[in-house]
């Protein structure tokens, strides 16, 4: 009997767990360790944040799903990895700390033969003074944060209904944030909601981000064919902001969030501030901060995890300038270079470098997006890694499956207003996710597969995907027919 231990039950970890369990024989174990008792379809948090969905509609309890599928679930958070065993234990193990009511804080060793780290991001609000829902700004990163943002929005709308003018500032809360797409969705859902509630004329909507230009999305922007032209995403994004009357501040690193006033530094070195009555700023992401120890108990965290706390995998981490970045720098198997039974998928793996060009202000402040790892690639890499591990556990000598973001396309639907009859969303496909300027010298990506358009159809798809992915994550009949 062998045991696969998966840390994290988000999009990546849960996908890996369900696929591994369905492929593995009964004599093997799949164990999931995750601190939350509920699974969250994070993309729909945007709709919780404007009050059109509740946290209950975007989450469900994990335990019954794992019970049904035969996955062993521990409601706990991983604290440290011991890949060589230690303290009298010969097998590798992970030290976990329970988060279950009544058992909170109790530590336990969970041994493993294979380990997948799918712990996603730490929401690093502390990186910016005053940032976050416990301080002076709102967030939509978790269903709970989003519900809080919805309450804040209701208050702002009430003030507008009383005739007050309000400034709503939405975007990224640090110079190295990623996930601009999520903030973009929230911005346009708020804009749509203000129109629906009849107060749009009382609102000044302002976008602030660390992107060099609108439409970067941490992907270095993209080129698409439209109306007889090959056009950069900047043009379409600026068009949408203009059409909806949204002002924008780009090339900005938010430095401090006071109640009602946000201070930021720009790429050209200016120190600016803007007053805001409603502020939703995403935090930067880092790894969750797992430590690693060898058999003797000496700390080896630095050789397993990057300084960002994301885990090293089979990427090329050599420091090199933007011009020398290659698609082959990106990982294919997501295996730790130091331990061949440890993998990291989804947001938990350390990317070799950003996708957007790194930029620094005169004082050295980094102001550029770090690379996004969205739902679809996170799910695909988790599935492929799970299949590779299953082969090893069952003693099959198969060809190793790969899932490089440089050879993978992604589809993404960014909501711009939630209504079945009047809503819109931007539907985007990109191939490959990591641009390849050797293969596609002008655009970095295949123009035949890279597309973007806005319309009601996108909203219908986004709405259907909400139900499809909740259904799939519950492992209901034929769930495998729904792609990652």
């Amino acid at each position: 009997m062998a045991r696969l231990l998966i840390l994290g039950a988000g999009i990546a970890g849960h996908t890996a767990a369900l696929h591994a369990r369905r492929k593995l024989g009964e004599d093997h174990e799949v164990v999931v360790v995750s601190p939350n008792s509920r699974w969250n379809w994070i993309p729909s948090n945007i709709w919780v944040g404007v009050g059109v969905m509740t946290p209950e509609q975007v989450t469900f309890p994990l335990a019954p799903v794992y019970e049904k599928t035969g996955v062993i679930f521990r409601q706990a958070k991983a604290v440290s990895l011991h890949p060589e065993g230690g303290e009298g234990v010969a097998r590798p193990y992970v030290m976990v700390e329970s988060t279950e009511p009544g058992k909170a804080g109790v530590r336990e060793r969970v041994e493993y033969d294979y380990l997948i780290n799918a712990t996603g991001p730490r929401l690093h609000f502390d990186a910016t003074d005053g940032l976050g829902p416990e301080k002076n700004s709102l967030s939509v990163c978790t269903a709970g944060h989003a519900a809080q943002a919805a309450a804040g929005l209701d208050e702002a709308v009430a003030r507008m209904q009383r005739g007050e003018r309000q400034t709503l500032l939405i975007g990224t809360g640090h110079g190295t944030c990623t996930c601009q797409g999520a903030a973009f969705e929230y911005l346009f859902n708020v804009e749509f909601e203000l129109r629906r509630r009849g107060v749009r004329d009382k609102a000044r909507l302002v976008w602030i981000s660390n992107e060099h230009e609108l439409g970067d999305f941490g992907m270095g922007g993209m080129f698409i064919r439209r109306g007889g032209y090959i056009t950069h995403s900047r043009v379409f994004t600026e068009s949408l902001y203009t059409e909806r009357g949204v002002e924008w501040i780009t090339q900005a690193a938010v430095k401090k969030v006071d109640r009602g006033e946000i201070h930021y530094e720009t790429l050209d070195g200016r120190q600016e501030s803007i007053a805001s009555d409603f502020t939703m700023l995403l935090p930067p992401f880092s790894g969750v901060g797992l430590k690693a120890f060898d058999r003797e108990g000496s700390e080896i965290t630095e050789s397993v995890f990057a300084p960002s706390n994301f885990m090293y995998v089979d990427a090329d981490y050599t420091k090199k300038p933007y011009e020398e970045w290659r698609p082959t720098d990106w990982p294919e198997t997501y295996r730790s270079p130091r331990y061949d039974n440890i993998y990291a998928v989804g947001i938990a793996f350390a990317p070799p470098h950003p996708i957007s060009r790194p930029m620094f202000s005169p004082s050295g402040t980094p102001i550029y997006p770090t690379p996004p790892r969205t739902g679809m690639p996170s799910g695909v890499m988790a599935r492929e890694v799970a299949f590779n591990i299953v082969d090893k556990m069952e003693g099959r000598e198969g060809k190793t499956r790969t899932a490089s973001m440089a050879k993978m396309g992604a589809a993404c639907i960014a909501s711009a207003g939630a209504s079945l009859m009047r809503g819109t969303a931007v539907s985007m496909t990109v191939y490959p996710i990591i641009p390849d300027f050797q293969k596609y010298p002008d655009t970095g990506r295949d123009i035949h597969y890279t597309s973007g358009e806005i319309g009601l159809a996108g909203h219908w798809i986004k709405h259907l995907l909400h139900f499809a992915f909740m259904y799939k994550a519950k492992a209901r009949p034929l769930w495998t027919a729904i792609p990652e």
Partner: protein
Amino acid sequence: MSTVRKPFEQSYYPPVPTPMTKALRTNWVWQFLRFLVINVRMLRMVRMH
């Protein structure tokens, strides 16, 4: 609100949609066709892996 009639402002340069383009974005018949097209495009992405 920014419009193309105000040159030299930040928002002067981007293209803005015509009323026809805007209407098509929420026209159910047209959007049903786009729904099919976008689904095909997305499935092509899925099949690539």
